[in-house]
């Protein structure tokens, strides 16, 4: 069970590393001789390899080992990364992902294909002088016997060890699985008869000495086993600290005599004498271990990973705080205690800042998903034989994690469309006197309370006339209809309306723009397409910043409280019921006839309407719509709560929010409401 958890952690970690790696390889493609990039790949391979064996990912270990040596050679010879190597590396990334996620057994065919490719790439310089630096700080879970013995092992190979065909990593993994402990790799230079690396290990084991000796059967003269104590000391923190201390001393080997003495003292209950020889540096042992861990993993600690459940919990607490604050303000208004009002204002300010802060934690830059798009464009354009530059702008724009998570699939689809259908073939582009390279531009920016994302290509564009024909053919339009260009482009979001004339492995697999739109709408976003024949297509997505807190106007009909998002509201005005009835629902706003929706009627409220009605004017697309309500209560910062699965089909209410006094207000889904009206009433 424990092991499974560690394994899970390892897989997660490797997935992160692979994402970084992909990025690095793509950068290497533009600058193939970047030492930094090459080192980076080398290090990542090394790190993955280091622990793969421990979790029984033998194939991953082998793959990373081989790719590491390729990069090792490139590094040592200061040459550049060829395109075949970078492709191989990307293949390697994909393969490792599959191996880790699906298990090693399932991918045998892919593995064989990969190794064939690898063979081809590395055959040019095949003189394996692999620098083995397996740093296996492995802990074997099996040895938990009280009769365990603590050993010290030194394994110091001669220089010709590789020529003799001895498998160094095999010996190391044998040591690792012999017991519970640490293996410390050491490096040397200047001794020509010795191999450039040697290993010291300290571990506890229940295995008899003879069995341990068997590990070193072929390297007897190059190894030595020393018994430190007749018990398991690897769980003794004093002992571990002593090992670290001795290891850091500038000596070639750990002084076993000193270690044995230390171990003896430990169990004679004598107070441990102050060590005579002070460590060379002032850094404590723990710190060194941490430092080493940091170096090994090559992680940059500018960010930390947090379980998303914890973030959700934080958001819940914040929303409760905001609600409680509102409750307090309510009480203050009732009793008006001057001493308290100052304090309340402070709490108000603080909780606002706290709320903003907590929200910002959930915000993730769009950059975090760009990698897969870059990869998509690269792979797809190669497959289709097109040359495409993928330009990104404003990818530091931040969005709520939930939105980002749900955005990548629709965006993937849009970009795929641009590569596949947008950008024309090379020949066609040249014939049109367009540059050979197509351009797909990805732009993200803030505007007001929204984030906009645009995907623009300079490809063929969509012909509105063709769309019209197709729409009539498929029954979406009547031949007599005279739609605007915009309405025609809207059609591509209709289910069952696909413009793909040929179906290939990439586009037209049934998931159409209608699904893209559904996904965007679910995020309270909007999507729009514009196009110009032979100039290209631009898709614009408008999204809210966050899904959890919005500013709203609190209104009421009868006793029901409703919330209207402030960003949609233009203004509020009043109208008498009598005037409303006399004018038969016609209403002018800013001297323009404006559609009004009587929410009382629309939401089927019973009871008598008030004489004086309030009208909330909201913006919808490029027009105004008036919503009639009984009363306007005031502004409310709404922490949105889902109404739950029972109300998934509710047409006009998108959620609820709890007010200061504990009552529930319902969030009006203005867009859906108006759209519904549009459908049922063609006059709008």
């Amino acid at each position, binding site marked *: 069970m424990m092991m499974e958890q560690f394994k899970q952690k390892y897989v997660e970690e490797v997935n992160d590393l692979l994402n970084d790696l992909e990025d690095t390889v793509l950068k290497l493609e533009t600058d193939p001789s970047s030492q930094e990039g090459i080192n980076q790949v080398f290090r990542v391979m090394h790190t993955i390899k280091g622990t793969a064996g421990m979790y029984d990912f033998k194939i991953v270990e082998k793959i990373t080992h081989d790719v590491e040596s390729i990069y090792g050679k490139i590094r040592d010879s200061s040459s550049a990364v060829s395109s075949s190597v970078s492709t191989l590396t990307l293949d390697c990334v994909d393969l490792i992902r599959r191996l880790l996620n699906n298990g090693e057994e399932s991918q045998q065919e892919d593995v064989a294909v990969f190794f064939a490719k690898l063979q081809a790439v590395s055959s040019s310089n095949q003189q394996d002088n692999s620098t083995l630096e397996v740093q296996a700080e492995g802990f074997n879970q099996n040895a938990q016997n009280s009769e365990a013995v603590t050993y010290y092992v030194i394994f110091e190979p001669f220089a010709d060890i590789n020529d003799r065909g001895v498998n160094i990593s095999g010996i190391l993994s044998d040591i690792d699985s012999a017991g519970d402990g640490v293996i410390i790799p050491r490096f040397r230079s200047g001794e020509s008869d010795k191999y450039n690396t040697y290993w010291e290990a300290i571990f506890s084991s229940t295995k008899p000495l003879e069995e341990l000796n068997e590990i070193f059967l072929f390297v007897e003269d190059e190894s030595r086993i020393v018994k430190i104590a007749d018990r398991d000391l690897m769980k003794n923190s004093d002992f571990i600290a002593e090992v670290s201390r001795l290891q850091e001393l500038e000596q070639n080997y750990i002084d076993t005599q000193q270690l044995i003495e230390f171990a003896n003292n430990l169990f004679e209950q004598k107070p441990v004498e102050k060590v005579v020889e002070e460590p060379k540096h002032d850094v404590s042992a723990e710190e060194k271990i941490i430092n080493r861990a940091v170096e090994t993993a090559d992680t940059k600690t500018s960010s930390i990973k947090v379980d998303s459940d914890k973030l959700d919990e934080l958001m819940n607490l914040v929303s409760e705080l905001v609600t409680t604050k509102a409750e307090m303000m309510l009480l203050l208004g009732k009793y008006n205690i001057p001493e308290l009002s100052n304090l309340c204002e402070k709490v108000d300010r603080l909780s606002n800042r706290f709320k903003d802060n907590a929200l910002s934690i959930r915000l993730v830059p769009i950059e975090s998903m760009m990698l897969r798009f870059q990869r998509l464009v690269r792979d797809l354009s190669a497959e289709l034989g097109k040359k495409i530059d993928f330009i990104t702008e404003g990818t530091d724009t931040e969005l709520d994690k939930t939105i980002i998570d749900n955005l990548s699939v629709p965006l993937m689809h849009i970009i795929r469309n641009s590569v596949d259908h947008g950008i024309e073939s090379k020949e066609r582009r040249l014939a049109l006197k367009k540059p050979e390279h197509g351009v797909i531009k990805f732009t993200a920016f803030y505007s007001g309370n929204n984030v906009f994302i645009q995907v623009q290509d300079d490809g063929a564009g969509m012909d509105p006339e063709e769309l019209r024909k197709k729409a009539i053919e498929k029954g979406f339009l009547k031949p007599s209809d005279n739609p605007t260009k915009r309405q025609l482009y809207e059609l591509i979001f209709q289910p069952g309306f696909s413009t793909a004339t040929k179906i290939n492995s990439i586009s037209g697999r049934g998931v159409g723009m209608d699904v893209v739109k559904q996904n965007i709408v679910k995020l309270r976003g909007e999507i729009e397409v514009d196009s110009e024949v032979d100039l290209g297509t631009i898709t614009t997505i408008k999204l809210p910043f966050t899904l959890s807190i919005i500013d709203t106007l609190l209104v009421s009909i009868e006793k029901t*409280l409703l919330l209207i998002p402030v960003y949609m509201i233009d203004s509020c005005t009043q109208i008498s019921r009598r005037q409303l009835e006399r004018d038969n629902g016609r209403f002018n706003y800013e001297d323009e006839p404006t559609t009004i929706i009587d929410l009382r009627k629309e939401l089927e409220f019973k009871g008598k309407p008030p004489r004086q009605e309030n009208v909330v004017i909201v913006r919808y697309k490029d027009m105004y719509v008036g919503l009639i309500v009984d009363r306007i209560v005031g502004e409310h910062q709404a922490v949105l709560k889902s109404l*739950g699965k*029972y*109300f998934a089909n*509710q047409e*006009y209410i998108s959620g609820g929010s709890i007010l200061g006094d504990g009552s529930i207000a319902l969030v009006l889904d203005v867009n859906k409401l108006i759209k519904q009206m549009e459908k049922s009433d063609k006059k709008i």
Partner: protein
Amino acid sequence: MENNFSGSQPYLSFEIDGELYAYRISQVVEVIDMQKITVIPKTPAYIMGVINFRGDILPLIDIRKECGLDCEKNFDFKESVIIVLEINKDDLENRFFVGSIVNSVRDVIEVKPVDILPVPNFDNKINTEYTEGIFKYNDNFITILNIPAVFSIKKNTNKTDY
């Protein structure tokens, strides 16, 4: 997962319109007093509205309307209580809470599986698809309601989650 044939199981009995019913106690979260109900416009009749349950929004269900029982009388708001249930407890994706309004809560009763009988068909007060069985307690018959069947949201959302 819930079929424990060996030992007895606790059930919470309650009364609606003079009839006794019971919920498996493992799915009962707590029993709360009647709260201010917020009615949601344009929802089916069996959804009475939503209430504020510990800062979250809880749908409130009238199982009489859900299960096709006669319901001439409305609930007396002063007397009624709400049993909060957790549905699909073991399925994190589809787990949700719901409130069931009842006239009053009676006892927690340990019932052995052998004592649970099938609901007779002629007793057509309640559709048998909503029941798990019936047992006798202190000279009264108590109908065990099948919580997943009663609170299935399949028919409300046209989803085929179940």
